[in-house]
């Protein structure tokens, strides 16, 4: 009996095996990914509140969508998200590309240095966020002292100040994720075949021309992929900011995900938060698709 089952398992057809092997993944994804997604879409049309059980769920149509899209606070949140997204990507792309170009000089010890530089991105963003709260402390923290040693600004608080708080999260995110962009650019640099430079040398192209016409175009697709992945991640940024500033002061650093969490788990406005989640998801998916199309066009060139 056992032997026949065993034989059947060993000698199953390719078709059966293909199904058997992919089915668990598909079922799990349906159960914990697709079902919640559909459920979210459904809830976004209702007045359901997760902390009020046993109340009949009523259909409210597009009420929440209307409310969100005409709500000025939500636009402020999206502005905060856009500000965060723009500057983190700007700094990370700039620093990451520079570091990659420098590391590509292959000086002695560049491998150990790469590992050291890369470390921050492997850490838990939430735990990093808490610790940076300590670094940013105006009195005991090191940040203010280092900054004041370079140029004396006097007293300031990174997290507590309305105009500085948005930059406090940008600095930490840049510290964490610049290495990622750097690694991507490095992969791009390493993919350039030597003969391109050799041919350029023979043609007596200057170093600057070589950089402009060989290095930059080869790195660009890698840099743009890095920007896409960082963009998606930072659009849904939650953990780091939730621990570092908690969205404050006021709601200055209340990024989209933080707003979502406050609405869903503090105010228990489940319908509203579901509608907001759907809007965010559609935005990421749409923007991501447009970006990928642009990227592919660039690659064709």
């Amino acid at each position, binding site marked *: 009996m056992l032997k026949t089952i065993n034989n059947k398992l*060993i*000698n199953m057809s*390719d078709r059966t*095996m*293909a199904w058997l*092997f*992919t089915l*668990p993944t598909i079922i*799990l994804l349906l*159960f*914990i990914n697709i079902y*919640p*997604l559909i*459920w*979210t879409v459904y809830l976004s049309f209702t007045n359901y509140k997760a902390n009020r059980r046993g109340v009949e769920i009523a259909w409210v149509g597009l009420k929440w969508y209307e409310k969100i899209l005409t709500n000025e606070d939500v636009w402020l949140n999206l502005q905060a998200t856009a500000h965060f997204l723009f500057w983190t990507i700007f700094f990370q792309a700039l*620093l990451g590309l520079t*570091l990659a170009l*420098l590391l590509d*000089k*292959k*000086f002695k010890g560049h*491998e150990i240095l790469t590992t*050291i*530089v890369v470390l*921050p*991105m*492997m*850490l*838990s*963003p*939430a*735990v990093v*966020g*808490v*610790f*940076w*709260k*300590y*670094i940013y402390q105006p009195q*005991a*923290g090191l940040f203010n002292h*280092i900054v004041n040693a370079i140029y004396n600004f006097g007293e300031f608080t990174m997290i507590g100040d309305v105009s500085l708080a948005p930059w406090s999260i940008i600095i930490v995110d840049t510290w964490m994720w610049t290495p990622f962009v750097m*690694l991507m650019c490095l*992969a791009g640099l390493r993919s350039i075949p*030597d003969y391109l*430079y*050799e041919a350029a*040398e023979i043609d007596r192209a200057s170093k600057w021309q070589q950089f402009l016409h060989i290095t930059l175009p080869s790195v660009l697709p*890698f840099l743009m992929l890095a920007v896409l992945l960082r963009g998606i991640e930072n*659009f849904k940024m*939650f*953990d780091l900011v939730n*621990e570092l500033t908690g969205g404050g002061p006021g709601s200055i650093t209340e990024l989209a995900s933080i707003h*979502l969490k406050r609405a*869903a*788990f503090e105010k228990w406005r489940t319908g509203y938060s*579901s509608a907001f*989640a759907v809007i*965010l998801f559609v935005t*990421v998916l749409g923007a991501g698709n447009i970006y990928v199309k642009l990227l592919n066009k660039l690659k064709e060139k």
Partner: protein
Amino acid sequence: MSASRDTTRSPLEPSATSRRIAAFLIILYASIAFIPMVLIVSTAFKSVTDAISYPPKIISEPSLEGFVNLFTQRTRQSAEYLETLPPPETWYEEIVRKRQMVIAGPSRFIQRFVNSIIIGFGATFFSVFFGTIAAYAFSRFRIPLKDDLLFFVLSTRMFPPIAAAVPIFLMYRKLGLSDSHLGMIMLYTVVNLSLSVWLLKGFIDEIPREYEDAAMVDGYSRMSAFFKIILPQAATGIAATAIFCLIFAWNEYAFAILLTFREAQTLPPFIPTIIGEGGLDWPAISAATMIFLLPVVVFTIILRKHLLRGITFGAVKR
């Protein structure tokens, strides 16, 4: 001699000067970026008073107060009461006693640490197991709508975790899976599946089909060829994938803070809640952070050759 060496240098090799400048700038960046790491370790070995002193103390007398605070719960007592107690028996009691307190019991740190290990390893095992077989099927078989399925697997990562947390919270409440190890293991397994399928598919794609074909000509069935040929060949890739999944589950915070409270709470939501007298207990938090980050640092060093591959879902191979 040196001049002639300079002229024979290949034009592709960067000059010695430019190398030196590059090395200097990278070392400069690395040392600035490394300050927070050093600070975590140094704060872990500071006393509570030194950690919040103004101006900040760079070097202070090493103290294990942070670690003692991390592992114990303490209560403040009056001087009269403390005098009635017998002298402290252990070094950690002595540290606590110096601050007018007695140890009331162990803290929850160890329990949270064990949770992190159970959930992290459990989720890693399942996501790598299901990921490997699915990746093999995606790599070798004709599956209807394969590209759509693969994209679907990936797109699940674009949904903000907070948004997914609401329906999962409702679903788990109904199924009685709230705040349970099983629930968190299932959740992290699924979140990691997209990474694991994509990464492993890349690794398995690189194993030539001829290996299995040859084995099957020799009389192996496909199943035994999978076990005896593919799995050993993909071992490095599977190990790298496992470490990535483990790091993700280990670091995950958004689901953990929303779906766990007591029983199944992991370290990332727990560490920020370590408070002492008058606010966050920085030495204890640093000590916890140090213990928490150590495995990730070790894994990063092991993984350094595969890092990019893991983080780009296998889009960049190197």
